[in-house]
């Protein structure tokens, strides 16, 4: 059912005004709003990080007069830094912002399965964020983002409001996951079997499984903290016969899989980038697809590795250690496949690919240092030290956030119809990369020397590491701001983006940039998502066009209907 309409009409300019945005059902607009909200939260979390690093510039010798921040302020800042960066930034970053924007288009669909629930999910995100702000204004939060009982049930800060905020954010996340699973199951176009899906969709599917199964557990565990504070139910209170370690089990049952909610979609973005920017079919499609599902499954059985010294039984620790190593294998498979994809390709070093290559390095360090923490013997010493802090920043920031930036640059032309400038983008990436390593590599060493995490003050022997780390943090901050400025400048001076600037073969590129209100003027035919021979470079538009355009729509390649099912 094609109906002719004005070709200059796209999803950005079809309706105007704030209400047309906040009340929209369009997945693209919801994705874009998520993206700006996430960037705003990231700036707030980043400012907190800078203040934390300023405090740690020099030891205070136990004297509050020498400190930049008071102890209680410092404790609130690292708690909020963690809570904001995890619940408001990294967990929704790729799935809710990029996933929302791209997923239906990759399926050639007009929207996600439940547009109203999608809008509800974004509104819940705003409410959850508002509640976190309310908790800051009504006494702050100083529990650490982990909310460990009995500290969280006894401290005088505004814990109830904060856990309620996290609870609401959890439902935002659940609804996104629910929407994606149903959309992928029920709205794939004819011809797109499971193994014809782009790998980003496999990653989002695996992510969504974790979101719907693990997030409710966190939600209720946090509600029990609130109930404990309000009514003194005692389930985690040792004085009333409760067990604080039970809270840790419930918390990590969500929060370890949550790490894969952060990293799995990042891996999906990387799979797209490595194929597109090497102009080659992704290497080992099935292994990458299965490894996403394997990671999602393994993620549920490894939570106890956060608790090797918590007082859980030795046997439990041994079992969890063994299970934890299982996650290393699918992760390694993906990295090997990405590197192999570049072999004999035509490797471009455009900004998204530069971020993707940075992640090979950063995820290499983040993933491999995980081995030390999964190993029972070494974890005893490294647990709760700066080694852990550095490890999870390499995974959550170095891998997930850098992949988010890769994805933002990659899909930016499709989102806004303009090209950012390449060279400033590349330099910003390089600056961030250097700053990141300078910030966090010294933290590994502070950790192996025994500096515990969440310390307002430290033994003077740890000063050199903290000095370098703070300098690195400033450089990292500059790089990230630079990247943002470069993206924003494209609105004023960026050249008009072609439909397919990078030469990808997935369906979101088979429609003009920015996309029309209902994504496609003409339903695209489904081919192999990594068959780069479907498109060729066209110098006149500095972009790619189908080798054999469809007679009804020049953006869409003509695909033989009798393609074999298998991708090989």
């Amino acid at each position, binding site marked *: 059912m094609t109906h002719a309409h004005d070709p200059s009409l796209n999803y950005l300019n079809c309706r105007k005004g704030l209400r047309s945005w906040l009340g929209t059902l369009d997945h693209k607009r919801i994705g874009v709003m998520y993206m700006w909200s996430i960037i705003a939260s990231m700036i707030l979390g980043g400012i907190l990080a800078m203040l934390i690093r300023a405090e740690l510039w020099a030891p205070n010798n136990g004297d509050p007069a020498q400190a930049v921040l008071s102890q209680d302020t410092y404790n609130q800042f690292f708690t909020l830094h963690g809570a904001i960066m995890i619940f408001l930034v990294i967990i929704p970053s790729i799935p809710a912002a990029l996933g929302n924007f791209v997923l*239906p288009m990759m399926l050639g*669909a*007009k*929207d*996600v*399965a*439940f*547009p109203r*629930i999608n809008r509800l999910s974004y509104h819940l995100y705003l409410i959850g964020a508002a509640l976190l702000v309310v908790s800051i204004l009504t006494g702050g939060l100083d529990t650490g983002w982990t909310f460990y009982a009995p500290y969280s049930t006894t401290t005088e800060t505004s814990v109830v409001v904060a856990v309620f905020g996290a609870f609401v954010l959890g439902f935002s996340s*659940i609804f996104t996951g*629910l*929407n994606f*699973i*149903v959309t992928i*199951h*029920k*709205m794939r176009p004819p011809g797109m079997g499971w193994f014809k899906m782009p790998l980003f969709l496999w990653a989002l599917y695996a992510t969504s499984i974790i979101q*719907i*199964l*693990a*997030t*409710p*557990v966190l*939600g*209720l*565990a946090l509600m*029990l903290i609130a*109930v404990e504070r309000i*009514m*003194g*139910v*005692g*389930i985690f*209170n040792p*004085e*009333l*016969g*409760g*067990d604080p370690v*039970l809270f840790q*089990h*419930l918390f990590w049952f969500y929060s370890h899989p949550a790490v894969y909610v952060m990293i799995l979609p990042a891996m999906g973005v990387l799979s797209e980038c490595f194929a597109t920017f090497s102009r080659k079919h992704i290497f080992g499609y099935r292994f990458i697809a299965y490894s996403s599902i394997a990671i999602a499954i393994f993620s549920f059985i490894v939570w106890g590795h956060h608790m090797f010294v918590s007082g859980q039984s030795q046997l439990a620790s041994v079992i969890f250690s063994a299970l934890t190593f299982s996650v290393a294998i699918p992760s390694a498979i993906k990295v090997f496949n990405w590197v192999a994809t570049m072999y004999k390709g035509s490797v471009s070093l455009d900004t998204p690919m530069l971020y993707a290559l940075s992640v090979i390095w950063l995820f290499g360090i983040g993933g491999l240092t995980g081995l030390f923490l999964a190993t029972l013997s070494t974890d005893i010493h490294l647990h709760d030290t700066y080694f852990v802090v550095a490890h999870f920043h390499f995974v959550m920031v170095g891998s997930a956030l850098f992949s988010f930036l890769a994805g933002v640059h990659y899909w930016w032309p499709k989102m806004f119809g303009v090209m950012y400038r390449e060279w400033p983008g590349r330099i910003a990436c390089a600056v961030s990369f250097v700053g990141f390593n300078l910030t966090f590599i010294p933290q590994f060493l502070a950790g192996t020397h025994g500096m515990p995490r969440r310390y307002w003050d430290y033994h003077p022997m740890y000063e050199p590491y903290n000095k370098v780390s703070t300098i690195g943090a400033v450089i990292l901050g500059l790089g990230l701001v630079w990247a943002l400025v470069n993206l924003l400048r494209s609105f004023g001076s960026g050249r008009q983006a072609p439909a397919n600037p990078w030469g990808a073969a997935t369906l979101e590129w088979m429609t003009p940039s920015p996309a029309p209100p*209902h994504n496609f003027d003409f339903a695209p035919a489904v081919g192999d998502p990594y068959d780069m021979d479907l498109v060729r470079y066209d110098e006149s538009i500095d972009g790619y066009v189908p080798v054999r355009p469809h007679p009804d729509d020049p953006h869409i390649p003509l695909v033989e209907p009798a393609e074999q099912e298998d991708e090989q």
Partner: protein
Amino acid sequence: MSQAKLAHHFESVEQQFDTAKLGMWIFLLTEIMFFSVLFVAYTVYRASHADAFQYASQFLDTNLGAANTLLLLLSSFTAAWAVRCAQLGQKRGLMLNLLVTVVCALGFMGIKYHEYSHKYHEGLLWGGARHSIFKADPAQVLPEMKHGHEGGGESVWESHHVETMDPALKKQVGIFFGIYFCLTGLHGIHVLVGIGVMLWLLWRASRDHFGPDNFTAVDLGALYWHLVDLIWIFLFPLLYLIS
């Protein structure tokens, strides 16, 4: 009887229906995970303190629990029947079944209210509650909880010698009641939501919104109601039938 409206992003009514149904099933999955937290807490404490749980369970009224179980089973049956009526386009049958479902649910909540207020008056609460008789320090138990109540008769404090009870046992009895109130309270909230959903369906049915081609909402509402019922089917034996 109206036709289902096809949203712009679906190809067919069947696809739209299948999608809604899958969405509901996944939502129910998250609900099960939600409750699982409390079931895990229950399992952990019961495994380590089986005796305390058996002891505490005697304070629950099995007859009232059984009555509630029957009410919910009946309401689940009428909810299923309502779906059938909607599929066949029988408006009166649909409305009647929805009404019975709501009445059963209200009956359930009434009995629950009775049980809660009884527990509250007897002080059968978790150790941290103000009116609890299972406080770690017997001196902190409110005097009015110790010595009977207006209706006469012995208080639980007296009849079960709570004052001289083994402190470790007392703590775990408190934990049992903590879990009891969390589990049944959370379930009760779900019943309340279910009543809201059934009333909404009733209102829509009265305005001829449903028919053989358009019964998705009734179907999904009933699915949700079956889950609420199913959770109670687990709660009843785990809490009431272990003494």
